[in-house]
């Protein structure tokens, strides 16, 4: 009985700690989402010339290095670059959207941990929360692939339009391909299976609770 009490206390302490962490994650992600949304609307509204001026102001000492080649970002280079604003706006809003699955994962994780803290271990709600977390993990992988494709397309287009030699463009340009992170999808599917197992567990728990 004493051993069980200690394990139980440790379990509760760990769950409480994780619950507080998840709550902090929700706040940080929500703030990040709001910031990204404001930045996305700013990119939409601000003219391209103003954006270029902003880049000039912030990238004055920027040097990009890759395998022995250094590219110093000069004002002339920035002036020669043609920024595809449509692609930039799409990138900004997609980056904002890509935070949403993370926020949802943190919210459902927080709800699940709160139930665990209250002693509700095996019930239908908890299994549903874990199922939703699994779906959002799979969504994270898909959105990450789309985001990578859009951003590499943007960088590739930008470099191609710049006043650079072909050799340097080839050195720094990125391939615009869609890469799917199968490990994340696999993890999502595994968590979904665990959720379904817990659903059956909650059914067994209900049966046990209803047995006199």
């Amino acid at each position, binding site marked *: 009985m004493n051993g069980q009490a200690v394990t139980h206390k440790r379990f509760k302490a760990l769950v409480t700690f994780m619950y507080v962490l998840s709550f902090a994650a929700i706040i940080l992600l929500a703030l990040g989402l709001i910031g990204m949304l404001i930045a996305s609307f700013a990119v939409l509204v601000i003219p391209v010339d103003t954006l270029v001026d902003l880049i000039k102001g912030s990238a004055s000492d920027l040097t990009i290095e890759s395998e022995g080649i250094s590219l110093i970002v000069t004002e002339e280079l920035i002036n020669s670059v043609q920024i595809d604003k449509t692609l930039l706006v799409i990138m900004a809003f997609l980056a904002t959207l890509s935070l949403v699955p993370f926020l949802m994962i943190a919210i459902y994780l927080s709800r699940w941990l709160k139930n665990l803290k209250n002693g509700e271990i095996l019930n239908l709600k908890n299994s549903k929360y874990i199922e939703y977390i699994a779906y959002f993990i799979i969504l994270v992988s898909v959105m990450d692939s789309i985001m990578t494709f859009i951003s590499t397309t943007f960088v590739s287009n930008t470099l191609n339009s710049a006043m650079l030699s072909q050799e340097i463009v080839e050195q720094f340009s990125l391939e615009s391909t869609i890469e799917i992170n199968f490990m994340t999808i696999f993890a999502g599917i595994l968590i979904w299976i665990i959720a379904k197992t817990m659903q059956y567990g909650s059914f067994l728990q209900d*049966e046990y609770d*209803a*047995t*006199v």
Partner: protein
Amino acid sequence: MIVVRLDRVLADRKMALGELAEKVGISNVNLSNLKTGKAKAIRFSTLDAICKALDCQPADILEYEENLD
């Protein structure tokens, strides 16, 4: 469906639910769930303890009624 006639037997024996719960060794809530038909199953050990406490047969407590649904 199985209908629990515990209230009938309790009235015959003039025993309160709480007293029976104490004799059987289960909580008032669980015994109340059994009496009101909310319980989904009963263990043989519980049925044995109830019959011993009430000095009755399982058939006195449990009755089968055809479900009209």
